[in-house]
């Protein structure tokens, strides 16, 4: 079946502009994660959604970052007033459940470049 998809694959934006990144998880997956990966670095947790529960936003680096998940499926990550340090690959992952025992399926990521 289809895996996790993300769009756009690449986004170049000017400093100060807002951007929206989209994630389509695998159908039936109730848990959805957003991560940020800077060049050559590890994965930085941003936010987690599980079903209809309140999201865990503890990883969001500033109030310029927000995310929502509509209907328990598609998610969008919004970055307002982008800064150059926001440049990174943003990865979305989904899993069958909220327990840490489920493997995460990652999308191809969105490469964001802020000029």
């Amino acid at each position, binding site marked *: 079946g289809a895996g996790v998809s993300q769009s756009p694959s690449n986004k170049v934006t000017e400093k100060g502009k807002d951007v929206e990144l989209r994630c389509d998880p695998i159908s039936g997956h109730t848990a959805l994660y957003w991560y940020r990966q800077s060049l050559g*670095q*590890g*994965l930085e*947790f941003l936010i987690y959604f599980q079903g209809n529960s309140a999201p865990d936003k503890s990883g969001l680096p500033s109030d310029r970052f927000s995310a929502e998940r509509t209907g328990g499926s598609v998610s969008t990550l919004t970055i307002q007033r982008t800064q150059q340090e926001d440049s990174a690959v943003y990865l979305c992952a989904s899993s069958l459940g909220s327990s840490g*025992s489920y493997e995460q399926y990652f999308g*191809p990521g969105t490469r964001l470049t802020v000029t």
Partner: protein
Amino acid sequence: GQQVMQIPQYQHVQEGEDFTTYCNSSTTLSNIQWYKQRPGGHPVFLIQLVKSGEVKKQKRLTFQFGEAKKNSSLHITATQTTDVGTYFCAGPRYNFNKFYFGSGTKLNVKP
């Protein structure tokens, strides 16, 4: 706070040599997962370890979970160029909804 450290950061080996990466957590983990990210790609799940002292093998890859469930290792026997990539360990936070990924070990295999 909980941290997952991974060493080494980089490893360059000649094809056929062995490779090991180590993962250490500051707190006890309920389970640990390993992922591989090829250059330019996204992380792909390799395996999960749950039990204290557990050892699992996948062909040339051997995964271990420490007795105290605070550390883990991935060992590759006789590396091949297809093993090139970054290997991450990941452990869930106590309430399972936040995963801590290690910083990764980047493996380069020279043919």
